[in-house]
C-alpha cells in the first residue's frame, strides 16, 4: 500500500520544481470505509448481539423440550421443516437487525460529521466528497451484507454443533439431520438474498443518506414524514393508495420477484437453490429504475456536502 518513492514534486503550471519529496500512494476509499467501521461499532455489535441472543434462546428451548423436539424431528413429513427451521429463523432475525442497523446508520452518516463539526477535519484532507459519499453508501450495500453473511454463517455453525451434540437419540441421528440440511446451498441462497436486498433497497438507503446530509435536525422525521404525508394526502384527496402501494412494493417487493412463490404449508424444497429466480429479478425494470434513482440521490448528496458546512 505505501510505496515510498523519491519523486520530483508535481509542478503545477509555473511553479518551480522542488528537489525531492516522499509521495506515497493512497487508498482513500479503503480508508474511508474502514473509518466508517471504526466510527460505527454498532454495525457489528447489533447483529452479533442478536445472534447471541438467538443462540441462547435456542439452546434453552431445545434443552427444555428435548423429547418433543426429537419426536418432531423423527416425523418424516415435517422432518425437513423442523430441521431447517432454526437456521431460517436465525438468518431472518439477523437479517432484519442488519437492515434496521443499516437504515439508522444511513440516517446519521452525513449528519454526525456536521453536528460534531468534524466535517472540517475530513475536508482538510484530500478525500473528495464523491469518495466520502461512496464510502458511506458502500456500508449498507456491500460491507454490512458481507458482515451479516459472516455472522449468519457463524451462527449456523454454532446451531449445527448444538444440534449434533444435543439432538441425536430417540430414533433421530445426526446423519439424518445432515441429509435434510443442505447448508452450503442455504448459504448460497442467503448470499443471493443479500445481493437482492442490496440492489432493491439501494434507493431507500440513498434517500436516507441524502436526508442526513441535508437537514439541520430531526433527520429521522424528515426522512419518514414526507412519504407518509404524500400517502395521506393522496388517500384524502383522491381516495387511492397508489403511493402507499408503491412504498410497500419498494420495501417488500423483492421477495416475490427474486424467489419462486411457495404454497403456504408445503415443506421446504429439497434444494433451496431451486427457488431462486435471478432472471426474473434482474429483468424487472423496478430494479434498474431504483438504481438510477439511487444514483441521483447520491449525486445530490455529493453536491450537498460540497456546498454545506457544519450545522
Amino acid at each position, binding site marked *: 500500500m505505501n510505496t515510498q518513492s523519491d519523486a520530483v514534486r508535481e509542478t*503545477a503550471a509555473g511553479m518551480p520544481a522542488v528537489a525531492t519529496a516522499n509521495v506515497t500512494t493512497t487508498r482513500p476509499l479503503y480508508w474511508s470505509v474502514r473509518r466508517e467501521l471504526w466510527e460505527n461499532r454498532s454495525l457489528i455489535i447489533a447483529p452479533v448481539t442478536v445472534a447471541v441472543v438467538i443462540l441462547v434462546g435456542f439452546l434453552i428451548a431445545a434443552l427444555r423440550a428435548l423429547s418433543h423436539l426429537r419426536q418432531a424431528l423423527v416425523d418424516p413429513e415435517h422432518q425437513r421443516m423442523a430441521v431447517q427451521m432454526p437456521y431460517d429463523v436465525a438468518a431472518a432475525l439477523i437479517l432484519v437487525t442488519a437492515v434496521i442497523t443499516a437504515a439508522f446508520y444511513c440516517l446519521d452518516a452525513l449528519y454526525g460529521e456536521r453536528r460534531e463539526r468534524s466535517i472540517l477535519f475530513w475536508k482538510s484532507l484530500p478525500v473528495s466528497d464523491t469518495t466520502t459519499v461512496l464510502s458511506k453508501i458502500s456500508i449498507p450495500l456491500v460491507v454490512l451484507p458481507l458482515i451479516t453473511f459472516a455472522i449468519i454463517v457463524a451462527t449456523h455453525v454454532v446451531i449445527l454443533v448444538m444440534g449434533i451434540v444435543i439432538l441425536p437419540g430417540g430414533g433421530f441421528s445426526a446423519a439424518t439431520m445432515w441429509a435434510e440440511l443442505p447448508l452450503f446451498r442455504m448459504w448460497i441462497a442467503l448470499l443471493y438474498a443479500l445481493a437482492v436486498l442490496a440492489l432493491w433497497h439501494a434507493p431507500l438507503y440513498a434517500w436516507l443518506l441524502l436526508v442526513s446530509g441535508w437537514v439541520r435536525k430531526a433527520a429521522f422525521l424528515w426522512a419518514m414524514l414526507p412519504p407518509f404525508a404524500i400517502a395521506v394526502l393522496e388517500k384524502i384527496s383522491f381516495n387511492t393508495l397508489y403511493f402507499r402501494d408503491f412504498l410497500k412494493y419498494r420495501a417488500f417487493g423483492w421477495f416475490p420477484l427474486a424467489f419462486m412463490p411457495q404454497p403456504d404449508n408445503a415443506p421446504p424444497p429439497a434444494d433451496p437453490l431451486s427457488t431462486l429466480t435471478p432472471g426474473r429479478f434482474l429483468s424487472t425494470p423496478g430494479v434498474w429504475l431504483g438504481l438510477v434513482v439511487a444514483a441521483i440521490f447520491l449525486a445530490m448528496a455529493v453536491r450537498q456536502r460540497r456546498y454545506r458546512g457544519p450545522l
Partner: protein
Amino acid sequence: MACIEARGLRKAFGTTIALDGVDLRVDEGRILGLVGPNGAGKTTALNAVLGLTAYEGSLKVLGRDPWQERDQLMRDVCFVADVAVLPRWMRVSQALDYVTGVHPRLDRAKAEGFLAKTQIKRTSKVRELSKGMVAQLHLALIMAIDAKLLVLDEPTLGLDILFRKQFYDSLLNDYFDHSRTIVVTTNQVEEIQNVLTDLMFINHGRIALSCSMEEFELRYAEVMVKPEQAAAARALQPIQERQVFGRSILLYDGVDRQKLAALGEVRTPSIADLFVAVMGNNYPQ
C-alpha cells in the same frame, strides 16, 4: 511567486456582504497574519481560499481555482479550522492510520516523533484528551504533512499560555522552512507579532491595511511624548492619540523617525495598537 492571489473577491450570504472586493497577494515562504474584528470576513476569506465556499471574482491558490479544483488542491494545502474539530470517537492510532492512508504527503515517522514529545497515549480516544492535547495531536498530524500552504483559523482558541507558546514555537522551529507559506488568523495578535512576516487587517469585508513586517516597523511609530512637546507632536498629524498614566502616546504613519525622536521615546507600536487605531474609526457599526 504568488501562493495566493485574489482580485475582486466577493461573497454575499443573502443580503449580508461578507467579502466586498478583496484584493490580496501572498507570496511563497511568508507567514501572513490576517487580523480583523469578529464578522470582518476573515473566515469567509479563508473558506474561499480553501475551496469550502463559492465566490465571485478571481482567486488562485497555488495556481489553481480552489472551488473547482479542490480535490487536487487539498494535497498541497492543510488547514486547521479550530483545533477542537477532531472527531471525538476516534483513537489517536486510528487518526494516524487514517491520515497516513489518505494523504500522500504525510510522513508517518515525523508525526510519531511529534506525538512522542507529548503525553498523548496511542489508544486514547479524542474525547478523553484535554483540549490542549487535542491541539497537540492535530498539530502533530499537520506538521508531518509536507504541504505548501498551511492555513490556521484561530488555532489557539481556548488554549492556555503554555500550549499557545509551544504551538507557535513548534510551528516556527519544526515546520516552517522558507518555501512553505502560512496564513494565520487570530484575535490574540500580541503573541503572533514576532512570528509574522506579513500583516493584513480586514474589516467589513475589505482589506484595511496590508504590509510586510519590515515595512510595518519602518512606517509606523509610536511616541510617548513629554507633556511640553504635546502640541508639537500633534502638529505632525498622528493617526491616533491615547492617554496612558497621564501621558500621551501618539501613533504616526510614515513620519520621519528622527523628527519623532526629538519629541520623546520612539518605538514600534504593537499590532494591537495599530489595529485599534486603524479600525477604531470604523468600529462599531
